[in-house]
């Protein structure tokens, strides 16, 4: 019964989404505030419908209602509650419903929060959001309904893939999708502005909070996915340049570029066309990311919930939505008025350069991801593009960006002063160089490239510190005065500093980990030992252990350094009877920001008949920083979002002034 209610609510949601698009478009045509209000009401109703449907799906998963096909395929009565709930978005159908839930949620939020927006622009935005909702809901209802029943319900479900039964991955899709779909509001606003033919500071100011929120979610979502891959896959790596990872990374790069170009549009009225282009591009890449992965067109090791049959349909949706938006852009953008002028050395130029580099980086990642498809279409040869390509193309562009970054916030708008900036930054440059040289001198083995990376990371961190000192006039005015300035800093400024600092911390962690990681693997009998990066690991015992829905073999590994005991690692190897799969659970031993990472492999037999276990150990120095950096960046985004200026629309203030 519940799932029929859900199906009905989903259908209602679709009907309201269509009504939302129609009513709001009519509102714009007739300039009627009554119709506009009706359209906004429909947006709320559509969200309510989808929310009910989503709640029904979660209910079906929680109560293990195996008469629902999707539950039977992805759940199991013995699964812990968290993974029962997470199972709701662990499948293709469920994840698309989650997508619709968040999409209509953003639509409803934009309809209620957008009071400061000009009437016409707002009605158009709600209409476009409604159109997007209609398309995706129609796809859900007619091609991928997660609430369908099956005729002969099984007694037990097939269970969720054990690799997905993990806390980080349980919350990864909601974060990632909140990021992806958050770009839809930005997209709708851009289309609305193109139809209205006017892009001004008010528009940019309205875009920024949505872009910021989506960007922050996406940052956390990607970080969670990477962290999951790090400790669940047992390969000791955190980024593989796999198509699935690239698919989530490209919208992030576009959104980052948009955040920066929107500042220029807001403050100086310039780059309006480019900001629009990025706004359309960010959501296009989000859809591409979600659908390229879902459709299974690309070969990937960690794509889940793939359904090639419906993939083509998804790609058609993508082509139609983005295709029409970019056609509109090509038609209307040349008529937009060009904005303010700026000198080659200015804050504007720095932000333009940031955008050029980010766009070029996105393009190289896109090419590397799609090149196997292109090549196969042209020559029929199946190939794959490996990490060396991405390291070679992406890293230099990002390094250039990192070199320029600290100078950007110190440059003045319109006309910057190179000498002034160098005067302020020489301390940071000296500190960064010092860190690099120290690394080169003290850390063995000596690695020039790694030391270069540390220099860059230190440069970013020091740059953020100099920028903060500059704003508070630290060391130039009395300390109390500086403190007052520090407290009085707008949250937007704090947000930027935090985001840049987070990037620096990430770069430090990533370069140190990549440069000085250690690895050892050996087949050990009980009592056997291996050494990695100065740590001595002894395999003490291996014994059985029962989990909630798995049986496991657990090892006890004593870790010591120079004779002193450090910690005990307990990696295990889990067998999930429901799906007949084996998954290894790694053990992490935290040493400051560094990790000692232990994996228990298969049991084998030595020639003399005694059992041996394959033990792999990795030394990942500063690995915590890799995950801490993005969290700080996302916090920066949220801090910016809480700035008062974001909540007070510039448009309304203008109306009052007029």
């Amino acid at each position, binding site marked *: 019964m519940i799932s029929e209610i859900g199906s009905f609510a989903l259908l209602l949601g679709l009907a309201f989404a269509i009504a939302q698009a129609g009513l709001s478009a009519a509102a714009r045509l007739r300039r009627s505030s009554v119709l506009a209000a009706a359209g906004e009401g429909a947006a709320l109703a559509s969200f309510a419908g989808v929310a009910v449907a989503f709640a029904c799906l979660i209910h079906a998963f929680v109560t293990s209602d195996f008469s629902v096909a999707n539950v039977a395929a992805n759940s199991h009565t013995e699964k812990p509650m968290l993974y029962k709930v997470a199972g709701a978005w662990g499948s293709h159908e469920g994840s698309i419903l989650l997508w619709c839930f968040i999409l209509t949620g953003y639509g409803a939020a934009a309809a209620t929060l957008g009071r400061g927006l000009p009437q016409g622009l707002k009605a158009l935005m709600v209409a476009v959001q409604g159109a997007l909702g209609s398309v995706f809901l129609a796809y859900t209802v007619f091609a991928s309904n997660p609430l369908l029943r099956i005729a002969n319900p099984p007694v037990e479900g097939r269970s969720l*893939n054990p*690799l997905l039964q993990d806390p980080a991955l349980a919350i990864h899709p909601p974060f990632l999708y909140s990021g992806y779909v958050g770009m839809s509001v930005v997209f709708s606003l851009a289309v609305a502005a193109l139809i209205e033919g006017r892009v001004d500071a008010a528009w940019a100011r309205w875009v920024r909070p949505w872009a910021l929120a989506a960007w922050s979610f996406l940052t956390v979502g990607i970080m969670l996915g990477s962290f999951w891959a790090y400790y669940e*896959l*047992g390969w000791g790596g955190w980024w593989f340049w796999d198509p699935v990872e690239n698919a989530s990374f490209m919208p992030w790069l576009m959104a980052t570029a948009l955040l920066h170009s929107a500042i220029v549009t807001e403050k100086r009225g310039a780059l309006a066309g480019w900001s629009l282009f990025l706004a359309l591009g960010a959501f296009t890449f989000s859809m591409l990311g979600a659908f390229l992965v879902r459709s299974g*067109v690309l*070969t990937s*090791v*960690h*794509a*889940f919930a*793939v359904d090639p049959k419906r993939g083509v349909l998804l790609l058609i949706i993508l082509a139609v939505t983005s295709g029409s938006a970019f056609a509109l852009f090509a038609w209307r953008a040349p008529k937009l008025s*060009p904005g303010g*002028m*700026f000198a*080659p050395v200015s804050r504007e*130029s720095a932000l*333009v*350069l940031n955008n*050029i*580099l980010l766009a*070029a980086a996105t*393009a*190289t990642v896109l*090419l*590397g991801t799609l*090149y196997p498809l292109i*090549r196969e279409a042209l020559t029929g*040869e*199946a*190939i*794959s*593009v*490996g*990490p*060396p*390509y*991405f390291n*070679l*193309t992406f890293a*230099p*562009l990002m390094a*250039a960006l990192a070199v320029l970054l600290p100078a950007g916030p110190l440059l003045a708008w319109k006309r910057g002063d190179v000498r002034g900036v160098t005067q302020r930054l020489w301390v940071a440059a000296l500190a960064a160089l010092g860190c690099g040289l120290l690394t080169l001198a003290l850390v063995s083995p000596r690695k020039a490239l790694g030391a270069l990376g540390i220099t860059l990371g230190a440069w970013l961190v020091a740059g953020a510190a100099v920028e903060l000192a500059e704003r508070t006039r630290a060391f130039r005015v009395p300390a109390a005065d500086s403190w007052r300035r520090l407290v009085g800093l707008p949250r937007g400024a704090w947000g930027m500093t935090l985001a840049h600092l987070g990037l620096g911390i990430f770069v430090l962690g990533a370069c140190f980990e990549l440069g000085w990681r250690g690895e050892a*693997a*050996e*087949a050990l009998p009980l009592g056997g030992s291996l050494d990695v990066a100065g740590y001595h690991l002894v395999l003490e015992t291996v014994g059985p252990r029962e989990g909630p829905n798995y049986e496991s073999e657990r090892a006890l590994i004593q870790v010591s350094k120079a004779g002193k005991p450090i910690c005990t690692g307990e990696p295990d190897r889990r067998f999930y009877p429901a*799906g007949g*799969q*084996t*998954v*290894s659970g790694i053990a992490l031993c935290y040493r400051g920001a560094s990790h000692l990472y232990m*994996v228990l*492999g*298969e049991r*084998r*037999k*030595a*020639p003399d008949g005694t059992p*041996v276990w*394959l033990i*792999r150990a990795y030394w990942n120095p500063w690995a915590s920083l890799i995950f801490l950096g993005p969290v700080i960046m996302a916090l920066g985004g949220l801090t910016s979002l809480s700035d008062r200026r974001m909540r007070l629309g510039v448009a309304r203030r203008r109306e009052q002034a007029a």
Partner: protein
Amino acid sequence: MSWLPKSPKARRRLTLVAAIAPVLALAVGLTLWGLRDSISFFYTPSQAAAAHPPPGRSVQLGGLVRMGSVAKHPDGRVDFVVADRTAEDKVSFQGDLPDLFREGQGVVAVGAFRGDGVFEAKQVLAKHDEKYMPPDLAKALKAQGEWRGDGSTPDYAKAKPVT
């Protein structure tokens, strides 16, 4: 500087082009360089027999693991046979196999052929998703008429009768 255009608009455009051009050149150059060196071809055993990649060149070998061919040695080395309908290759791999590696199932081995014709794998990929078959492999199997749907094992991958 007299060679600069007079109108501010054209001047701005020139600056923009001057900024974009080096980045674009860098990106294009790196991309072409990168694509030349770091792509690897995908072969099934019969395609590999036809194309005969030179020893040492990094390629991917995809096929089904033949039943009964997996030999795990105590030093961590694993030998197995990857087969398609008409050909098979011996694969040697040092390390821990992915959790989803099973006999009779599709795998992709990344590595290079040795001089003696044995494929030395640096990495063995089996999909995280148990119902999965790598698209390249599925396509190659379909082309050979060996596609039986997900998860089923064709005859040639089953253990050979001892003769």
